[in-house]
Structures are given as structure tokens and as C-alpha cells.
């Protein structure tokens, strides 16, 4: 599989490590009301779609970027790749 890195162009999947569902970006506030339930869901509940899936890939053997890759789980077709940093910032995260 080839992942089109937004900065470095097409790169072999061998250079990347799969780091899970992109929903992991939305870490709950541990101090909020109902944090235990929120963390239970955050840790254990995952969708398992047959189709488009947003997932985290870490360019471990490259520039060490974290990417949000939109991949079709049926065909491995990759339709969108973003820097996870940009995705997190767009959701109002501090960095």
C-alpha cells in the first residue's frame, strides 16, 4: 500500500505504523462530569465500518508526522490524507 504523504509525496506503507482510529484525537476531558464513562467509550468503543474509515498513521521511519488517513476498508483506496496536527488544530486544540 502507498500512502500519499501531504508533505513528502507517495510513500510505502512499510515506513508507517498504524496507530488506530482517528477518533483517538478527541480525548475526553478527564476532569469533566462523567469522565469515567467518557473514557470507557474513548478506550473501548470503536466503529468497524465496511467503507470509509478515518485512521491515524505514524510516519515512524520517515519524518515522524502523524497523519489522518481516510481509507476504504473494502478496497484500501486512500481518498484523503491530512497532517493530524492540522486536524487537531482545526478542532480547537491548543497546538
Amino acid at each position, binding site marked *: 500500500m502507498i500512502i500519499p504523504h501531504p508533505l*513528502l*509525496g507517495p510513500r510505502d506503507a*512499510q*515506513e508507517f505504523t498504524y496507530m488506530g482510529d482517528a477518533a483517538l484525537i478527541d480525548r475526553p476531558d478527564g476532569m469533566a462530569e462523567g469522565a469515567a464513562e467518557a473514557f470507557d467509550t474513548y478506550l473501548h468503543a470503536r466503529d468497524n465500518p465496511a467503507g470509509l474509515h478515518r485512521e491515524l498513521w505514524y510516519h515512524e521511519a520517515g*519524518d515522524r*508526522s502523524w497523519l489522518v488517513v481516510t481509507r476504504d476498508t473494502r478496497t484500501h483506496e486512500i481518498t484523503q490524507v491530512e*497532517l493530524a*496536527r492540522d486536524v487537531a488544530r482545526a478542532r480547537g486544540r491548543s*497546538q
Partner: protein
Amino acid sequence: MPDLAPLTPLGGTTPRRDRIGGVTIAEACDWALASVTARRGRASDAAGRMAAMIGTALPGPGAMVRSGDWRAVWLAPESWLLAAPLAGQDDIEARLRDAVGDAASVTEQTDAWARFDITAANPARVGALLERLCNIPPARLTPGAATRTVFEHLGVIMLRETDDSLSILGARSSARSLHHALTTVARSLA
């Protein structure tokens, strides 16, 4: 302080040099290295101060630049590897730290790496070697390109400064594995 004898990454007293077919693989120990990583929100500040120090703008993703004695390699977003001739530069980390101030963090890297310079009179030889070394297409690793990738399960930085040369930086602790792999590939082409 005892008088210590410096050893090359391969453990010799002089850098090793292999000529295989039309390709030369030379262990090289003549660069001082340091990485510079911008602190949060200080990327343009750090890049500006670095540019003033080395005399040219820092390279963008997948690229390297050379300016006088300095080489700068893009490593990661807001992070660069700086190289300068080792002679007279054993304080590279302090010099860079003075230049960037609190805009970036500087880490001495000189003895962390083993470097092999691969040269061939025929540039096609370098391309042929490259396509057996890593999964970066040779057509993308043109002069001025530099990238970190995998070669024989080892993380390496490939530097393509000119058409007929290629420098490979790998972990010094894996220098012999790297050298073995490079000479094996070169022999398969000879």
C-alpha cells in the same frame, strides 16, 4: 585525561573505502552534526535566525541546501539537521544555540551517525544502487533531495547532493550492518 585514539564508526583508525565495480563506498567522518527543532509557535523565528547564520533559507520538506560550509537537511516539520566540516566545528551545538536563542532546541548529533558517501563516475550506477537500497524511486531522489527512509530495516537519511553521489546517514551503532548491506548491494551490481 588519557590520550584517547579516535575510531571511525566501523572501528578503524582511518575511514574505510571500498571500490566495487564502478562504485566507491567511503566511510566519512568529516561532518559535525546537530539537529535544530523549533519550539512551539516559534518556527518562522527559528527559521529566520538559522537562515541568517548559514546564509540561505532552510530547505522545505524532502530537501537539502548547501551554503558555504553549511548543509541543512529537512528532517520533519519545523526540524532540521545541520552539518558543517568537523575541523574547527567541534562546538557546532553551542554555535547553533547562540544563533537560535530560545526559538529552537539544538541537539548535538555528530557521533550519533555513521555516514557513507557513495560515488560513481556514471550517475546511472547511483540510480541502480538506489533502487535496490530503499523504496524511494530514484527519479524522486534528484540532486537537492534528502529524506529519511528505511534500508535493510534500518532508519537512514538519504542525501542526494549531486547526480553522481549519494550520502547515507545511519545510526552509528548499526554502522557495520549498514556497511555490510551497502557492499552486498554494490557487489550484486558489479
